[in-house]
């Protein structure tokens, strides 16, 4: 049975629709009302507040903590400045991805790692060799993600951190009321946003402060359904949906490399040894076997498929994650889509798909399976630039912004 997060006393009464699911053992809200639309639009126009406590969190301490993490991760985290955060992934010795998450440098000998899956064993496998200790702090630290164009204004009202100076993927140690918190400028929506990390005991006070300050800014409590649509627009992949952790795969073909998942930009090859380096170097030369792309359904074709049955086109009202085959224009399967969503902002029907590399260029014309009236059909689709949602506010500092 899923357990309640420290925010449960606040989220439960707000969740009118009683739509919950199990997220890493916690009861997590899918949507607060019957339709998640309002929550999605809060992310894009005001601010959405989402409980992300179930993320796995680890502390890595020791004089050689940075060196150790640089060895574990594909990204050279020794380059991190104090208070900087990096998005990264990590691989097994064959260069197959294990998980993705963030690494924060809190101090010279003190780092934090967030992961999608329980990773204590993986992260501590070689810790002793580096005199590093890895501690699971997942159950001690609660987390809220505040995402949307108003998130900065709201946080500014409750905390004393200089948010105007807090850059994208940096953190600030600050207070909200009496509570000590860490604020990271991170998130999973592709929008301006922050995540607030707080000890369980202070969780409710932080929720209350953010919620009350946020209401005049149009803040809405948001659930996983809304975040799922936002993350697809933002082109973010999800462990367990768009790829699987290599140690959990029964067969080789299920495993993926960072290059396949369009995470090649994370891989810093030219540096001292790190896990998977040799395999990744080989793949950097030969090229990946498949590539993750964003597909956009051709709307006219989509409409036509429905019109054949006298139906108006229908789109799934939430993000889907049942895989669908992808074909070339002649109908030969060249890949598969792992998740997708109708983008309410771009008015486009999108899918994330892994396809043969020669088909992965922008503008490439493909087909994707669509079920219409119980019949499997193929709809034209085009490889489009990823991410589809992009806004300067996500990364900029206020003095450079126009509203």
């Amino acid at each position: 049975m899923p357990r309640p997060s420290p925010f449960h006393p606040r989220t439960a009464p707000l969740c009118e629709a009683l739509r919950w699911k199990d997220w890493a053992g916690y009861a997590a809200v899918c949507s607060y009302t019957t339709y998640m639309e309002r929550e999605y639009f809060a992310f894009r126009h005001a601010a959405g507040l989402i409980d992300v406590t179930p993320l796995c969190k680890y502390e890595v301490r020791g004089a050689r903590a940075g060196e150790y993490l640089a060895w574990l991760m594909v990204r050279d985290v020794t380059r991190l400045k104090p208070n900087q955060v990096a998005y990264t992934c990590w691989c097994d010795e064959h260069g197959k991805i294990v998980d993705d998450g963030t690494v924060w440098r809190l101090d010279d000998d003190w780092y934090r790692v967030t992961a999608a899956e329980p990773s204590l064993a993986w992260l501590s496998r070689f810790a002793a060799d580096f005199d590093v200790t890895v501690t699971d702090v997942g159950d001690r630290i609660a987390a809220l993600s505040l995402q949307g164009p108003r998130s900065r204004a709201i946080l500014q009202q409750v905390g004393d951190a200089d948010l105007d100076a807090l850059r994208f993927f940096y953190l600030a140690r600050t207070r909200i009321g009496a509570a000590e918190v860490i604020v990271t400028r991170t998130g999973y929506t592709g929008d301006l946003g922050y995540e607030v990390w707080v000890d369980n005991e202070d969780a409710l006070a932080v929720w209350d402060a953010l919620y009350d300050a946020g209401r005049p800014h149009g803040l809405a409590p948001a659930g996983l359904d809304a975040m799922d649509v936002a993350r697809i627009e933002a082109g973010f992949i999800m462990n367990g949906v768009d790829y699987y952790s290599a140690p959990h795969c029964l067969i080789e073909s299920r495993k993926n490399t960072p290059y396949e998942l369009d995470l090649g930009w994370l891989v810093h090859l030219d540096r001292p040894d790190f896990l998977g380096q040799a395999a990744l170097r080989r793949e950097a030369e030969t090229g990946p076997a498949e590539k993750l792309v964003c597909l956009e359904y051709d709307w006219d074709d989509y409409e036509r498929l429905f019109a054949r049955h006298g139906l108006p086109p229908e789109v799934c009202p939430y993000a889907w994650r049942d895989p669908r085959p992808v074909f070339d224009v002649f109908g030969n399967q060249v890949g598969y889509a792992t998740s997708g969503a109708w983008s309410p902002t771009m008015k486009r029907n999108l899918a994330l798909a892994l396809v043969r590399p020669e088909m992965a260029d922008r503008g490439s014309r493909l087909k994707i399976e669509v079920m219409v009236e119980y019949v499997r059909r193929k709809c034209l689709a085009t490889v489009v630039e990823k991410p589809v949602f992009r806004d300067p506010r996500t990364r900029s500092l206020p003095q450079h912004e126009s509203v």
Partner: protein
Amino acid sequence: MSQYDAIIIGGGHNGLTCAAYLARAGRKVLVLERRHVLGGAAVSEEVFPGFTFSVCSYVVSLLRPHIIRELDLARHGLQIIPLESSFVPYPDGRSLNRSADPQETRREIAGFSARDAERLDEFRVALTRMSHFVKNVIDNPAAAPGSLRPAELWQQLRLGKALKELGPDLQHLHMQLLTMSAVDFLDMWFESDQLKAPMAVSGIIGTYLGVRSPGTAYVLLHHYMGEIDGAFRSWGFARGGTGQVSNAIAGAARRYGAEIRTEAPVAEVLVRDGQAAGVVLASGEEILARNVVSNLDPHQTFLKMVDPRHFDGDFLGQIRRYKLRGSSGKVNLALDRLPEFACRPGDGPHMRGDIAIAPSIDYLEKAYDEAKYGQYSSRPYLNVVIPSLVDPSVAPPGKHVMSIFVQYAPYQHADGPAAWPEHREAFGDTVIDTLGEYMPTLKDDILHRQVLTPWDLEQQFGLTEGNIFHGELSLEQLAFLRPAAGWARYRTPLRRLWLCGSGAHPGGGIMGAPGELCAKTMLKGSQGRG
């Protein structure tokens, strides 16, 4: 030598759409807008510091989804936030909220009629099928009956086929829609006045007709389309106000290379050798172009911009008879805090959609009665939205903007149209009093107010007689009859003068379709650089 392939008079959203499509096809285009801001009736202005009003139009429903995609408007800043619900308070303290949640809506309606609650789905199915058909009409140039040109026959056949595919039941329904009043049409499904009244108002918006006037059923469908176009989700607020629709289109047009000038009022269309050859600005500046496209309404275009000698009497007669009887006004408020409904306090979903003061059919008919004799309704129909609840960018935190669309306010005031300024504030008070009966604190919450009478709409926005749609959306002025029989295809009797605004098919509303279809017609007609 003319430097431009086309000059577009007017930077309303249709003129901009036309410009964007022409520029996208490589044409050299110049848009000339009279005001300092773009958008015409789809405009956002910070009327009071910190408060951005959607001064005229306030919800986006009919904007064609393919235009959003083809011009990539989202990348140019267009974001539409859906309206959550439709709310009506009644004088007896009851209220009705219809939302996207079908079960909740059913429960709400069942409070008035259990039968109506169940019939709503059948009604939706019928109207969805109908609007699927009407969509064909809207997304294509008007058919020209009687023409034997192959392309037009093809059009006719397609529509004929679409109509046939509707099946006999819906063919009847279509005929009924074309001829019935909104109330008669709704009577076929529903029994409760409380439900029918707010539904019927879609049939009269922007017309000088009552909910019991024949022909209003069709207008109801026209509006309903945006609402049930569910999958496209194009019914909502534009972030930053409706002006953002125009700004996004302007952004696209500029990206394709169109030139846009504001504060450049056009005084007249230059005619040389019997064809449009450019424009003269009010400043006296002359600019030549191969084509002149007017975004203005048919009266402005044919009776003001061009010397009447260039048109024959029959055409002029039709244009003079073309009905532009403005019947609505607008009140925009800057609010210190969110007012509440006495019957349903709080800031629940009912506040985040559109709110109608349309408590009964008789109320609406009475409102119309007064208008017939040149008075504004003493208790008008109001359509209220509070966009700041879902789009905090339009008001300071905790403060709000409220947009109130008001009908009836006849342009032909009993004391003459020019008397409207004297009645403006009293008209504004009537509106506030009407809403205040349901929202007791409203008056105290108002920081600033802007009152627009039909006279103001004409003076400030160039809308003849204050008609919000460049001419009524009544049946005799739609499709192949808009704006005049034989001239519904964006061409005009003056060669190289085109019409691209809401006075052309398929009509008014933030739709973009006249602008798009005009551009596409021009491009088709001109092989190379015509």
